[in-house]
Each structure stands twice: as C-alpha cells, then as structure tokens.
C-alpha cells in the first residue's frame, strides 16, 4: 500500500531533476501523475519511466505562464486521471546572475513570471478541481534563497520569497476546505543545470563552504521524499509551513 494510493497529482517541471524525481516517487506510492513541463522530450521520458515501472502517468507540454495552456492541462488531467487531489509546483526559470543595477528588466520579469505568476496560475486553476475532490495537498518549491539572499540573484530571491507567502495565503484561505499548502526550501541540490554555471559539483560544494554542513549537495530524491510527506496524509496537521531541506544551511 502506497502513501498516495488513490491520489491524482499534477506535477510541474516534471521533466526536470527535482520534479522528475518527485513525479516518479509519487507514482511509486500509488498516485496517478500528470507530468507537465515546457520541455516535451524530458517530460515524456518521466511519464514513460513511470509507466515502465507499472505506474500511471500522462505527459503534457505546458507553459505555466500561459493561462489557457494551464487551464487546458488541468482539465485534461481530471478527464484522463480523475479528480485532482495533489499539486507539486516546481517550475522555475533559470536566470543569469546579475546584480539589480545590471539586470535587464526583461530578465527580471521573466523570472517573476515563471517562478511566481506561473505558480499562481497553476493554483488558480487546480484549486477548484481539488475542492471538487473534497480537499488535497499543494506543495510549492521555494528555496533557501526565498529566506536568505544569494549573491547576484535578485529576481530569483524575490520570486522565491513570494512563493513562501503565496503558499501561506492559500493555506489560510482554503484550510476550511481541507486543502493544505506548504512550501519546501531546498538547499543546493545536485542537478545537471548546475554544471552549466559551474565547472564541477565539487566546485559547488566548495563554494557553499561551511554553510553546507553535510559537505555534499542534496539529491533530488531527498526533496521528493519531503514532498511525499507533505503530499500524503502523514502531514495532516501541517499547513502553511516552510520546510527547509538544506543540511542546516539556513540554521547557520
């Protein structure tokens, strides 16, 4: 018996590292998973992996900043998988490093649009379906940098701060409807994106220095397992919380 038996989950950025691991784990634990991403090939791979492992999944191309596309994807999820109970919001833009004074306005807007407005749009159209299902759980990916600042990432920090409060807003507004909403604040998680900006994983560990108390990066499955806890009834009295999964990064 899985922790998510009978649940239907909508997972954004499911072609990516963290959300891909989460989609797979949700399916292993019994959920039917709608895998959404802008990258078609990646999201098809995640859904195919789930099916190959005996789970239920559909893949869909979805730009979370496009209201119509989101609406359609949510409708398709319900039509094909059944009443929606679970939402995992991880879509985020990978912006270049700039200080405020040098950051082009378009880049600022793009990051805010994907990381924050996209999450708003997905919630806006998913919640009515979760209400119909009688309640559910929403898990939003914020970041360590939604709480403390990272150098040269003003848009990312701002958007991820916004995610934390959007989460609490939903938690308060829909508690009476049996919808819980929590955020995860991952520390540095190992993934292929990292190597676009850094020469090696070791270099990233070294850069984070003494704040990274385990002297290693987090693995996507460690975020997935936390998401599983929050998505499942195991966390039934946890609502509006920020869950740091960061090896003590923000404790230091």
């Amino acid at each position, binding site marked *: 018996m899985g922790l998510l038996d009978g649940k239907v989950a909508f997972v954004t950025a499911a072609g990516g590292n963290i959300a891909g691991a989460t989609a797979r784990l949700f399916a292993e634990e019994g959920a039917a998973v709608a895998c959404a991403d802008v990258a078609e090939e990646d999201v098809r791979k995640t859904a195919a992996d789930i099916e190959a492992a005996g789970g239920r999944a559909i893949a869909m191309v979805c730009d979370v900043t496009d*209201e119509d596309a989101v609406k359609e994807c949510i409708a398709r999820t319900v039509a094909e998988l059944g009443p929606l109970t679970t939402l995992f919001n991880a879509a985020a833009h990978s912006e270049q490093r700039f*200080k*405020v*004074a040098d*950051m082009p*306005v378009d880049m*600022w*807007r793009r990051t*805010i649009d994907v990381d*924050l*407005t996209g999450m*708003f*749009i997905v*919630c*806006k159209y998913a*919640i*009515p379906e979760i209400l119909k299902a009688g309640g559910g759980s929403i898990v939003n990916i914020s970041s360590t*940098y*939604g709480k*403390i*600042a*990272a*150098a*040269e*990432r*003003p*848009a990312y*920090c*701002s*958007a*991820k*701060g*916004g*995610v*934390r*409060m*959007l989460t*609490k*807003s*939903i*938690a*308060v*507004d*829909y508690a009476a409807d049996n919808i819980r909403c929590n955020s995860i604040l991952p520390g540095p998680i190992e993934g292929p994106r990292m190597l676009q900006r850094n020469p090696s994983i070791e270099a990233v560990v070294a850069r984070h220095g003494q704040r990274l108390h385990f002297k290693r990066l987090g693995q996507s499955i460690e975020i997935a397992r936390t998401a599983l806890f929050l998505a499942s009834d195991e966390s039934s009295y946890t609502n*509006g919380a920020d869950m740091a999964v960061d090896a003590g990064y923000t404790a230091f």
Partner: protein
Amino acid sequence: MGRLEGKSALVTAAGGGIAGAIARRFGAEGASVMCVDIVEESVTKTAGDIESAGGRAAWSLCDVSKEDQVRELIGKTVGAFGKVDIVVNAAAASEPTHTVVTMPLEVWQEVLDVNITGMFLVCKYAIPEMQKSGGGCFINISSTFGSIAWPGRPAYMATKAAVKQITRSVALDFAGDNIRANAISPGAIETNRLLARTPTMDAVREKMVPLHPIGRLGQPDDIANAALFLASDESSFMTGADMFVDGGFTMI
C-alpha cells in the same frame, strides 16, 4: 541640526499616509525630499507641507512600474538635489480582496508590477547614482503580511515577501559599495488604506486592535520614526534587516 542634514531622499507613494509621514519627517530632519506619487494632488500637498515647514522638497509624478518614467525620475532627482542618498520604496497597489481562485490574472499582474517590479526599477536606477556619490540606503516598505498570512490577499502577501528578499539581495550585492538596504514591516497603520476593506475606522479598530497586543492601531509617525532611524547613520551597521513595527501583531 537635523539628523538627515545634507541628504537627498526620494520617497515613492509620498502622497499616501505612511510615505507622506516619512517624507515630512525626512524634510523636518534636513533632507531634501523628492516626493513621488501617481496622484498629483496628494503629492503636491506633501511637498508643500515640507516647504511650508521650512524644508526643501520637490515633487514628481511617476508610475514606478514604467522603466522610462523611473529612469527620468532618478535623473530629475539628481538634477534637483545633485545626488540620491536615501530611497524609500513605498509604492504599492491596493487590490480588491480575492482568493487565488477568484483573482483575475490581470489584477495579480498589476500588484506584482507595482509592488515588486516597481521597487526593482527604482533600485536599478538609483543604485548607480548612490555608487557615484559613495553610498546610500534603501528603506523598503514590506508588511507583516509579508511574513504571516491573512485571508484574501494572495498577491499583496506574495509581493511583500518578495520585498523582503529584494531588500536582502540589494543589501548583499551592494554592501561593498556602502549601500545599505532594510525593510520595514508595519502592522495595521491608521491610514485611509484600511478603509478600502472595512467601512469605518471604528470597525477597523474593533477588528484589528485586539490582534495588536500594544492595544492600538499604528500611526504613520510610528513608521516615519523607524524610517528615520534606518535612513540615518544611527543604523549604520544594519543592513538586510526586516524591522517589524507592528505593535506585537506578529509575535502572537
């Protein structure tokens, strides 16, 4: 001798209750104040008050969400006062009460545009001027609702959390330039804004005073006092901080 003698300050939303009090206080303490708002009548009143009290003020209309207007505003301030030492970012949209589900995307977008993109733009164009003159400081108005939630305010709360993070981002990235950035998180402050959601101030008091252990609503001068401290050299070791001026609202 005023505590801001010789300083040049730019205050957005200076026609409003909170920022108006800040602008007047800064003027009384010797700063030259550029009063900024989108409403001519209110901003000229603030500037006029400062001048009739013997201070130095100028005013400008500016929609902070428009890049060209912000660029022009900074130029105008430097033209009038020679530099920009202090920026108070207080402009915020007042959106109607909505949950995530009922809020139209356009409303969400407008709140984000003014509350965070506007702040980003003012920082973006003010910082190079501060660098030229050897430093400066930002006072960004966040809210208790950037840390804890209240029903029906998803966009406002997400942006006010983002404000805390853009504040930390600026504080971190420009610490080496002798630029400080701090946030103020006011509780319920007795201004006309409170009447947007509740018919009378008495009704506001009835609802909000019990939630403020100090036993009263905050006054605009409470925030002006905090802003003065953060603008002055008395707070010279404070940066990236989030100062709660909330009568204990968030502690219970």
